[in-house]
């Protein structure tokens, strides 16, 4: 079943899915959440729970990926995502090679395709990639014989972030079921790969999803929402787009703030950080309109005082550090599932 089967099929499949049902994993790459079916997302969640069990042990290491070669190739600055992936790979006993393009031959003008061919010749089996150009990991997946895991591409997708967000929400929502739960994402949705991937996973989970921000930073998303609503394009369900932050946060179960990138101001999309903070910043007063047990999330790194007030970020509602530690479990789960899926083209599969 593919995600293209639409809302009805996705909902029907999840109703029938017994909690212990064995779902086969057959994806060679994880480039975005959009191609994952709900049973596959649940398989990732269950596998991540087991990985969480490993992280709670005195020895946080299992030999599942012993000797498998994992390479991180980051064309964009990142601390938490890269370290999280590398920690995840090491916890599974994989051999990790880490490439920061600022100090690599990329600065001498080597193309992405040539870099990937070189890494493959050096023995890379699983490539974790971040690139500032949307779609770059898809090009990588075409030329690389192993597995590609998207660590974030341009404005397009950040699948591991969306999955760790879903995982964190399920831990806090009673019964772990997001159906009908109100989730609001506030901020620069337009330029956010985190938001885009979350749209796929949260609508698949059946959440009541709201996207909120200045109208200039929501451009086009209302058309996406309308197209899904009208059933004109394949998709999971529906979501709301609004600039009314009070309406968006009212009775929300989850409030997620997105990072406001300072460079957006030069483009004229935002008047000033101060005005953004005043109109859309997640502060204690706004959060008090959410449900009493609501959680506050942020994919990091936070601009405290801009999209999120420091007291909210440090409050008991904030699950930001849980998101970081859950990220390791989710990435371990994906590495594990990918390492076991092969179609004969993976180096080492014939061992």
């Amino acid at each position, binding site marked *: 079943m593919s995600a293209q089967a639409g809302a009805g099929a996705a909902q029907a499949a999840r109703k029938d899915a017994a909690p212990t049902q064995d779902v086969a994993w057959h994806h060679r790459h994880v480039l975005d959440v959009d191609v994952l079916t709900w049973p596959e997302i649940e398989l990732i969640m*269950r596998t991540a729970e087991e990985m969480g069990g490993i992280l709670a042990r005195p*020895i946080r290491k299992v030999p599942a990926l012993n000797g498998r070669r994992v390479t991180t190739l980051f064309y964009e600055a990142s601390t938490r995502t890269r370290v999280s992936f590398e920690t995840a790979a090491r916890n599974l006993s994989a051999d990790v090679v880490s490439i920061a393009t600022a100090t690599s031959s990329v600065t001498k003008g080597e193309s992405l395709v040539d870099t990937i061919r070189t890494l493959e010749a050096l023995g890379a089996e699983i490539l974790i990639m971040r690139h500032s150009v949307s779609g770059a990991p898809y090009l990588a997946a075409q030329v690389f014989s192993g597995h590609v895991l998207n660590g974030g591409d341009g404005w397009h997708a950040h699948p591991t972030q969306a999955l760790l967000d879903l995982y964190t929400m399920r831990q806090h929502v009673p019964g772990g079921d997001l159906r009908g739960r109100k989730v609001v994402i506030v901020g620069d949705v337009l330029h956010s790969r985190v938001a885009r991937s979350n749209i796929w996973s949260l609508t698949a989970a059946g959440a009541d999803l709201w996207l909120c921000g200045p109208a200039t930073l929501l451009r086009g998303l209302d058309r996406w929402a309308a197209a899904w609503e009208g059933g004109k394009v394949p998709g999971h369900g529906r979501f709301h787009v609004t600039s009314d932050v009070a309406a968006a946060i009212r009775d929300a179960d989850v409030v997620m703030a997105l990072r406001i990138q300072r460079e957006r101001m030069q483009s004229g999309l935002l008047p000033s950080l101060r005005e953004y903070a005043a109109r859309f910043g997640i502060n204690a007063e706004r959060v008090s309109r959410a449900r009493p047990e609501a959680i506050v999330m942020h994919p990091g790194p936070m601009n405290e005082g801009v999209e999120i007030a420091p007291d909210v970020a440090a409050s008991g509602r904030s699950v930001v550090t849980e998101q970081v530690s859950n990220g390791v479990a989710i990435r371990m789960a994906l590495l594990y599932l990918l390492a076991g899926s092969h179609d004969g083209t993976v180096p080492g599969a014939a*061992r």
Partner: protein
Amino acid sequence: MTDRQIMTGDEIRRAIIRISHEIVEKQAGTEGLALVGIQRRGVPLAQRIAAAIEEHEGVRPPVGALDITFYRDDLSLVAQQPIVKGTDLPFDLNGATVVLIDDVLYTGRTIRCAMDALIDFGRPRAIRLAVLIDRGHRELPIRADHVGKNVPTSREEIVHVHVAEMDGTDEVAIARQAGDDTDRR
């Protein structure tokens, strides 16, 4: 494919009672004893052995469950990534005598994985092994301390252990190789 029954429910029940006595005898009591079932059918068997020990000793040793998926040495060989079933060891392994319990002992590779996994949780004083069926064909230097029944088999045969908790009935049967070899031990 024809199934040939090699153990009835009654025979399984008697084997479990005998193994429970042997375990206590070898340990000279229940002090420091812990049972760990290997997912999946080792877990209900461990529960039953614990219940049998409680019956004649008045003490129920702690029971844990061990999933060895992440310790398998054949991940790159199996067609699909095995589904993880969960590890739960609700006691301190350090200094305990741990009896691993599984349904079928075959190549010994599962037991090697289980020992690797256990040792990541602590340092047991001793690890012992109890199995319902020993079907031979070891590929590693491993033997069981307690065996319900030794069954000579050929490699083409499959041993099916059914337990009431999971399969609705207690029975051990032997079958000729079918297409599905994922559950083969």
